[in-house]
Each structure stands twice: as C-alpha cells, then as structure tokens.
C-alpha cells in the first residue's frame, strides 16, 4: 500500500468518526439534542473551545507545567533506573536480596501513592514528578538490568581478550548495551512520565493539563473535558515524535529496515 492511499484512509477514519459524532449529537435521532450534547458535546464546540483556549496565554502555562513535570520525572526516573539497573546487574547478591521487594514495589498501582506524595511534596510540581518517577524508574531499571545481564558473551569475551579492564568494559561494552535497552523503552518510559504528571495533576494541583481536565469535569463541562483530552492527545503525539527523532540520532548503529545495507 502506498503512502498517500494510507494517509487518505487514515484521515477518512477520523473524518467519519467526527461526522458520526456530529450527526448523532445535533440531530434528534437519539433523542433531544440539547440533552445529548450535555453528555457528549459536539465536535464543533470542542474545536471552538480548543481555539478559544489557545487565544489566551493561559493554556501555554498549563502545557509548560505538564511538560516540565514530564521531563523532570523522566530524567530522575531514568537516572535512578540506570544506576540501580547497573548496580544490581553487576552485584548478584544485591539483586537476589532485593528481588522480592522490587517486585512488590513494582506491582503496586501507583495511583494510590499520589495522595501520599501530595502530602510529602505538596501540591506543586514535585509530587507529580515523584509519581512519574515511580513509573519511569521501574521500566528503565528492568531494561537496563536485563541489558547489562544479556550482553552478548562473545562480544564480552572478545573485549576481554583485547585486554580491557573492568572500567574499559563498562565504558565500551556494558554501558552502550544498557543504553540500547533503555532507548528501546524510551517511548514507553516517556509516556509513563506523562501519565504520572497528568494523573498527579488530576488528583490535586493548581496547574497543568490534568488540572484543566479535572476543573472542567468538576463543573460537568463536557466540552472542556474533551477539549482538554484533545490538547493532551496532540501534546503526546508531539512528544513521541521528538523522542523518535532523538532515538534515531542516538541509535544510528542499530540495524533498521531503512538503514540496512547488505554489501
């Protein structure tokens, strides 16, 4: 299938959904449109609200807060995950002793931590960063742990035969291997950083996209909720695209369908 055809079909699906939404909420097929619009709003209203939101500078502040929380949650979580992933992968005993605790901590649904974090870190950005941290940390931790443990034994033996000491092995073999695994989970971990930020905002804050949505919900402003969701969705897509660009830059050595050359 060629690109244009795919694009036309993709846009078609979106348009069809919008048209269906519009028809069902503005015509009396399912009952009184006024009543239905209270629950489902209409696509035109939602778009108009989004445009109105962006006509003020207010929305940019919320976007910035959410972005900042996401970045901080990702950076702290990834740093912690890399450090502990490395440490546990190189120290068998440590990994064995802490194994049940790490599993237990990871099994905990993070939402229940949000009120505690709000208590500990206040209603500002740090309680959201903490929530995002708990999500990102484990993803990166498990990936780095596995990445270091599953370094190809041949590559490792070869590097040792080249005379590398522990520090050189770390720099030339373990570290790049661990980074590969971390980057392979980059989309997931950045996504979870954002989830942490938005959920945290939703549960208690005074700024951010989650706060906007929660505000609209509390006054049954369905149009506002949908507008917030739409902005959030676009925001996520933009961040994901940026991550893809970074990933392609950093993992240039990795075999991919576009770069593979068979001589």
């Amino acid at each position: 299938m060629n690109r244009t055809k795919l694009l036309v079909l993709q846009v078609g699906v979106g348009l069809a959904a919008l048209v269906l939404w519009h028809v069902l909420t503005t015509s009396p097929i399912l009952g009184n449109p006024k009543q239905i619009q209270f629950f489902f709003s209409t696509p035109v209203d939602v778009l108009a609200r989004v445009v109105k939101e962006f006509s003020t500078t207010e929305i940019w502040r919320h976007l910035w807060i959410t972005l900042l929380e996401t970045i901080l949650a990702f950076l702290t979580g990834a740093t912690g995950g890399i450090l502990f992933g490395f440490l546990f992968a190189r120290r068998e005993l440590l990994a064995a002793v802490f194994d049940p605790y790490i599993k237990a901590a990871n099994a905990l649904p993070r939402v229940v931590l949000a009120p505690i974090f709000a208590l500990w870190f206040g209603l500002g950005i740090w309680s959201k960063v903490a929530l995002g941290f708990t999500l990102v940390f484990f993803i990166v931790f498990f990936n780095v742990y596995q990445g270091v443990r599953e370094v190809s034994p041949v590559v490792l033996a070869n590097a040792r035969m080249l005379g590398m000491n522990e520090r050189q092995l770390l720099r030339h073999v373990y570290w790049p291997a661990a980074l590969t695994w971390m980057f392979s989970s980059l989309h997931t971990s950045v996504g979870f950083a954002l989830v942490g930020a938005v959920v945290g905002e939703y549960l208690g804050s005074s700024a951010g996209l989650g706060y906007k949505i929660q505000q609209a919900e509390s006054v049954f402003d369905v149009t506002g909720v949908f507008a917030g969701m739409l902005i959030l969705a676009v925001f996520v897509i933009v961040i994901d695209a940026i991550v893809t660009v970074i990933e392609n830059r950093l993992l240039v050595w990795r075999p991919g369908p576009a770069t593979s050359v068979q001589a």
Partner: protein
Amino acid sequence: MTTPLPAPAVCLTELAIAFALKGGGRYTAVEGIDLAVAPGEFVAIVGPTGCGKSTLLNATAGLVRPVAGRVEIFGRELSGLNIRAGYLFQQDALMPWKTALENVAVALEPKGVAAAKARAQAEQWLRRVGLAAFTERYPHMLSGGQKKRVALAQMLIRDPEILLMDEPFGPLDAQTRQLMGNLLLELWAADRKAVMFVTHDLEEAIALADRVVVMSAGPAARIIGDFRVELPRPRDIAEVRLEPAFHHIHKEIWSQLRVEVQKAYAQGEAG
C-alpha cells in the same frame, strides 16, 4: 631438564577440561591433551563436530580453566587471561555500537595508546585488510566477510604473539573463505606469529597450516594424529589444492579423520 631450545609459544601438558552439567554430573570435553606450538608455527586443529576443539582454544586463551594439566605460554604457566594472545571468534564479536574504525582503534586503548594515534593505526590496518572505504560503517552495514576483516584487523593491531582462531571463516561462503584464507596467510607471512587455527574443514587446514593436528570424537577427546604439511610457501589457497602433495596428505589425514567423524555421527544419531 636443560634444553637450550626456545620455549614453545603454547605448551599444553596432560590437559583435561570438564564442564558441570545442569542436572548434576560432569562432561569431560577433552582429556590427556599434549600439544606444543613453536613460535612462528601455524597449527591447524581438525576434528569432528563437538570434539572440544574450541574448548582447547578457550583454555589456551585463559577463558576456560582446565581441571587438570598445564597451559604454558612461552614457558610460563598461564594464570588468568592470556594477554599475549589474540582471539578471532567464529561468531560476530565486534561491538555493534562502534564503527569499523572505532572497533579496531579501541583494541589499542588497553595498551594506553593515545586516541588520535590509535585511530591513525586503525585506519592503516583497515586499509591492509581492504576496508579503507568502509571505516565509518557499523557492523550491521557490513557483509559477513567484511566483518571478519574488521575482526582480523582488531586482533592484529594489538600485535599479539599468539593467534587463536576458532573456525573464523566457518560462516562465510566458499569464495569469501578463500579470499580470507589468502589474506590471513599474507598478513601472517609478514611477521610469523604462532597460530592455533581450529576448523572442521580439512582442506582449509592443510592449505593454511604447517601442521595439522587431528582430534578424536568427544567426549574426552584426545589428539590422535599430528601431520606435517610440507607444502612450499607462499601458498595460494585455491592453487595449492591442485598439487599432488596436497592430495597425498589429504588422503593420509582423512583416512584417520573419517573414522572419528563417523563415530561422532553415530553418537549424534544415537543421542
């Protein structure tokens, strides 16, 4: 013991290597191995699949500890890794996250060579193995033969005194194998190092080596034959096969090797 002879590059005495099996018990890979490789000598080791040829190399490299016997390198008992040896692996052993040039240059880092100097030398070596145009390629962008050339340069740039090669050209196609064989002989002839070259291809062994050592089928494989190859050097891998002397020695070794290959095959069928 007052032998004035120079110490052999590699001397294996009464060597035995065993592995613990998962379900308990022990698998003896090789046993009672006596083998000496003189400095500058090219020794090929042939034997049926799974006879422990690679295990022998790994013990010489210090990657595997023997359960009995001694490994001596230039007269000194080996402890830890054999840093005087270079190892060419059968599988891909290049660091996939480094370019060809970086892979070769990094081999000089443990020797304390400055980065700029290491890169310059690595470029020279890549030119010598015919990869001058591919220095910035990552391993996945190279063909199997090209990767082997990079690995060869990576091993040789350190100037090791002993070369250990574990079926290095095994995964390559026939033409590439010949090219690589000739390249290896050419590089080796420049400053003859002691070589232990493991292969299951008898023709390759005879074409390359000064001596062909035959191992029995495992478990507890032993050395059962040791043949001198009196073919003149320099040799061309493709042409040397056409000489009558080549056929003669091939016949002689094969008559012994065939029995072991059949034994190994029968074991494979039974197991």
